[in-house]
């Protein structure tokens, strides 16, 4: 336990070291999440639009 506490204390600089690593993780995860969701959404919209068009084309025939 002693070791763990020491580890988390970061030699008294816990207030600087941990936030630094945390923000890196948060920003990287957020960027990834936003991009991934944007991509998925765009795939869905595209598929829907294409289906729409195919339908209309077959209607027209």
């Amino acid at each position: 336990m002693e070791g763990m506490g020491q580890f988390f204390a970061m030699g008294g600089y816990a207030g600087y070291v941990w936030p630094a690593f945390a923000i890196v993780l948060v920003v990287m995860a957020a960027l990834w999440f936003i991009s991934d969701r944007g991509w998925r959404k765009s795939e869905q919209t595209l598929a829907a639009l294409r289906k729409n068009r195919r339908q209309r084309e077959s209607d027209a025939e």
Partner: protein
Amino acid sequence: MSLHYFANPTRFTRLAGRIQPWAGGLAALLLAVGFYLALIVVPADYQQGDTVRIMFVHVPSAWMAMFCYIFLAVASAVALIWKHPLADLAAKASAPIGAGFTFLALVTGSLWGKPMWGAWWVWDARLTSVLILFFLYLGYMALWQSIEDGQKAAKAAAVLALVGAINVPIIKFSVDWWNTLHQPASVLRMDGPAIHPSMLWPLLIMALAFKVYFVALLLARMRMELNLRRIRALRLAERSS
């Protein structure tokens, strides 16, 4: 296999789809290793104590901030000169990633600066030029946003990206040109790295992890942009019919 081999968007989508999961996985793995090394294995510095660990996220972020801009500028040049159809998208897709890394460099630098220099922020040349880089990214994205016509926006943004590229050498060499508080380069320099190997390796692993992450994210964003472009075309065709 010329530059134009990947100009075909469908081929690109297929290839990107294949690479992306691997790149994502590798980035996650390298990041995990890097974090482990940086937080646990590496000993505290005798001068800086445990704050030195911030280096392992700060320095790769700062490198990526500059790297992304170089990438963006090169992609813009390719788009303007060779009219490569994917170059626009690559440039557009890399801007938010670059902005993210620049933001990280600023924040982690601040978090390091407080214990080291006793201030969150000082107005020295290196710090300020990174701040300016951040503004440049924002301006670039805002320009894309504010021009409706996609093709026009691409060209305008490319011109801006190229003009803004002068900022990169300024950031790189600002510490040499002005006497500042900030560390001069100790890894990326002409006469080889001046840093202890026990620190160098984790740093390089972290840097590699960031690079691979960039690739994975770039591919995802490019596919998204490509889809968005197709969606626009379909919508417009629909509206006019």
